[in-house]
Each structure stands twice: as structure tokens, then as C-alpha cells.
């Protein structure tokens, strides 16, 4: 069990965003979290990634309590995330973005007088990740000039460059055309295998993607876990289908 959330409650004043959410992520799993807007998904993500301290309950990553420790500390422990609204460094190239992640991973950020260009390991690692995400030929393109799909890939790729043990993807295919969605997911899954990711968690709205890739689906509704089961079981669960999934078209 890599990541475990036990009875998480989060209150904003009187508003209960999360009402006793428990979940656990095992080695090798690809878990999707689904639910309508307002179900508490964003809050849950922020609690799981140490950004928010839960009002009650605990989150444990590799057995360690990570409640509210913050993104920087969490990254050191081995968890990375990507963002719903794509986050890039506009003035940096693709390669520089990946180099930044590698530098951070290797703890070389405080090397004030060393040469970045001369750091063979950083260069090689960054190129490697670029290759995994089909961004090699765009290595020297400015991040802000990339098409939307590539920006999303870069956001995820830089998180992967941290070689985390577990990654949390917040709507990895949102804002991307349907044609590109599957391409992105294939790249993602391939890269995950290559760098030895132990588990992937994603928040997704697109049910084709959710059902196509997940080992397990957690359905959230009004701050509570409605269902936590395999795709087949979820499909058969009328409550979930009604409240979250919608009619599935074959």
C-alpha cells in the first residue's frame, strides 16, 4: 500500500468539502477518481498532495504522514503531480523545463557556479524524458509556442522527470481534442512503464479514457466515496451510473 487516506474530512468554515473519504492505492495500480463538479475532487487532490492539511483523518505516503507538508517536501518523498490548467514555464524551452526537473531531483539547484550545459547527467536525463514523450524534435522550442496538446505533455513530462514513485494527474486530457486524447494516454502509460512508476492516480471526466485505462475507479459524490471498484463493477452499479457516469454508449 503506497498511498493511504483514512477518513479524510475537510471543512471550509461550515461547508464540508470532504466527509470521511478513505482510499488506498496499491503497487502497480492505475486508479481514476471521478465525480461531478463540486464532489470534492480538487480538495481531495490537494489533500493527497500535501497542499491542504485535512481537518480530520490522515494521509500516509509510504507509511509517512504527509498532511499539509507542501509540494516541495512531497516531491522529495517521491510524489509528483500535474495540473488541470496546464502549467508551463513560458520563457523556457522544452529541454530547459525538463532539465529544471532533473536538477531539482538530483538536488543540484544550489550549484550557483557550476555549468548547466556541462552537466552531462542532467542533459542526458532530460533528453531521455523528452524522448519518452515524443518531444525530442521540439526540444528547443519555447514552451509558450507549443500547441496545447504538447503543453499538456510537457506538464506531465516534467513531473515524470522527477522519477516519482507515484504520480497524480489532474485531468491529463482536458482541453485536448478527442483525437489527441488517446495518443496522450498511450504516451503516458508507456513512459510510466519505462521510468518504473509504482502507481498512477488520475482525476478524469472523460469516461472513455477512464474506462479504457483504469484498474480501479473511485467515484466521489458530495464529499463522500460513492463507490470504489473495478470498471466492470462500476459500470454495473446503477447509482454511480446515474450520478456520475451517464449512460455508456458502446
Amino acid at each position, binding site marked *: 500500500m503506497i498511498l493511504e487516506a483514512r477518513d479524510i474530512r475537510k471543512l471550509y468554515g461550515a461547508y464540508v468539502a470532504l466527509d470521511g473519504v478513505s482510499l488506498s492505492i496499491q503497487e502497480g495500480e492505475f486508479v481514476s477518481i471521478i465525480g461531478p463538479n463540486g464532489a470534492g475532487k480538487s480538495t481531495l487532490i490537494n489533500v493527497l498532495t500535501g497542499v491542504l492539511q485535512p481537518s480530520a483523518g490522515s494521509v500516509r505516503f509510504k507509511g509517512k504522514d504527509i498532511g499539509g507538508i507542501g509540494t516541495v517536501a512531497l*516531491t522529495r518523498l517521491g510524489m509528483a503531480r500535474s495540473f488541470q490548467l496546464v502549467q508551463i514555464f*513560458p520563457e523556457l524551452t522544452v*529541454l530547459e523545463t525538463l532539465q529544471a*526537473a532533473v536538477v531539482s531531483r538530483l538536488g543540484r*539547484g544550489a550549484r550557483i*557556479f557550476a555549468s548547466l*550545459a556541462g*552537466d552531462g547527467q542532467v542533459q542526458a536525463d532530460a533528453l531521455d524524458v523528452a524522448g519518452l514523450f515524443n518531444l525530442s524534435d521540439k526540444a528547443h522550442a*519555447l514552451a509558450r509556442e507549443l500547441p496545447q496538446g504538447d503543453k499538456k505533455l510537457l506538464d506531465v513530462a516534467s513531473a515524470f522527470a522527477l522519477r516519482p514513485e507515484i504520480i497524480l494527474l489532474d485531468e491529463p486530457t482536458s482541453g485536448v481534442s478527442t483525437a489527441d486524447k488517446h495518443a496522450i494516454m498511450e504516451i503516458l502509460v508507456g513512459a510510466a512503464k519505462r521510468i518504473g512508476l509504482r502507481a498512477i492516480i488520475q482525476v478524469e471526466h472523460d469516461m472513455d479514457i477512464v474506462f479504457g485505462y483504469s484498474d480501479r475507479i473511485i467515484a466521489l459524490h458530495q464529499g463522500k466515496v460513492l463507490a470504489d471498484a473495478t470498471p466492470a463493477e462500476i459500470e454495473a452499479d446503477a447509482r454511480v451510473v446515474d450520478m456520475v457516469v451517464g449512460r455508456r454508449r458502446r
Partner: protein
Amino acid sequence: MRTPVVLALVGIALVALPLLAPAYHVTLMLPFMAYGVVLLGLNLLFGYTGLVSFGHALFIGIGAYTGAVLTTRLGVRHMEAILPAAALAAAVVAAPVGALCVRYVKIYFGMLTLAFGMVFYTFLLKFYKLTGGDEGMRMLRPYLLGSEWKGFSKTAYLIGPYYYFSLAVLVLATLLMWRVVRSPFGLCLKTIRDNPLKAESLGVSVPRYRWYAFMISAVYAAVGGALLATPTGNVDPTLAYWTHSGNIVFMVLLGGFSSFFGPLVGAFAFIFLQDTVMSVFPYWRLIFGAVLAFIVIFAPGGLMGLFARRRRPIEVSRA
């Protein structure tokens, strides 16, 4: 690449200048070189980390007054001791001030730095027994390479040994800053400038790196400040006034904050433009205000921005 050629030519011109140009212009190069050092540091904060300080003149003041105090009160005359002392004084002040200020961004950072700058100005002004008040203090001619250069008149000293000493300091400061911006640390600063949220998610501790950048830029400002004080031989509180801080930000913008050499170009352009304007028209602030307004509205990339255009402004690494 064209850049090494340009740099070589500029280098030759700088070295040959005292032998070719009239003394007046050579002495004008001295504040250019001093501000060049200051601005290299300021741009680390502005162009590379995205923080605009309206109180940076505080550190120029620290450097200048270190020079004055050491030469007149403590009998230390060697420039090779004064510059490191200025650097140390700046680092000591910048550590707590910076630690406080970097937790805030944008306008609040600007306001906090402005407040600290004015605190120092007020201290310099009011505690006249220590600092000489509004008349300031004198700074005696520092020894360069161990010698007082006794036989040299003031002008001969300034356009001779002092010119070359300043040039050496500027070159050293430039080389050092070049290494800093091309280092892994420099890359991290740029991530913080571009997207602090994303930078944190990659494990970059935003306040800590901003703090490092703040301290480095403070040290540069103080070294520049000590260099600035020597030609006039006098330091006074206006060195730390907020409009002085505004002027140096203007200089960076003028040269171009997205370019490594922008600050140097800006210092040069400002000093010589000011001299040219003042010789025909006493109201140089009016002209400069208009120039600043023009740059902000039409040419935010500054002079280097006009030249660079399609080319990528900041080179870091080419794999």
C-alpha cells in the same frame, strides 16, 4: 556566433580608451562601470527571478558608506579590503531583509523593499554624528594593488590605475554572473520567474532561491556602490533614496532585462545620455521620464530587445 566578436571589440575599446579619449569621457566611464556591476546584480533579481525591488539603492548606500567609514574612520585604505568588506556588509543586511521580503511578491515586495530602503536613508540622514547627516562623509582615495599612487593627480589616478581597476572588477563581476545565470541555480531562478506554482511542484523551494538571488544582487550592489563613491570622494544619504532605486530599475529596463548584457548596455546608455542631455538642457529628468514612458509602452524589451527581436533573448544551454 557574433557575440564573441562584439565582446572582443568592446573589450579592446575599453582597454584602449584612456589612451585615446579625452579625460572627461574616461572619467564618465567610471560611474558606468560602477552601475554596470550594480545592474548585473539587480537584473538577477528582476530579469531572472521576476522580482522588482524599489529599495535596492539601500545596498548601494551600504557599499558606499563602507568605503567612507573604512577609509576615514578605520584607516583601511586598500580597495582589495574595502570591496570584500562592502560585500560582507551587504550580505549581513540582505540576509534578514531578504528573508522577510521574498515571502511577498509583486507590489508587496516592491513596497517592502521601498520601506527598507527609506529606513536606511532616514538612518543615514538623522544620525549625523555617526554618518555625517545630509552632508555625508568623505571617502579617501583607496590604495590600488597596495600603492597610494602618490605621484598621480586626482584625474591621473582616476583615468589611469582606478579606471583599469574598475574595469577588472567589472569584468570579474560579469564573468561570475555569467556562470551564475548559466548554472543549475540560474535555471531554477527562471522557473520561479515564469511560474512559481509549477516550480514548487518540481521541488524548487521558491522562497529559498529568491533569498539567494536577493543576497547575490545585494552584494553586487554594494561592490558597485563602493566603486561609485571613489571618484567623487563623497557619500551622502541620497544614494539610498527611493528615486535612486527607481533610476536603477529604469537603467535595467532601458538596456533590456531579458538579455544578459542588457543591464550593461542600460548603464552605458543612461550615463552617457544623461551627460549629453545635461550639457544642453538642465531638465534631464523630463527627457528621461519620457524615455522611460516610451520604453514601457512601446519597447518593454529595452535596447537589447530592439536588437535581439526574433532571436531567443536568454541563452542558457544548447544541448
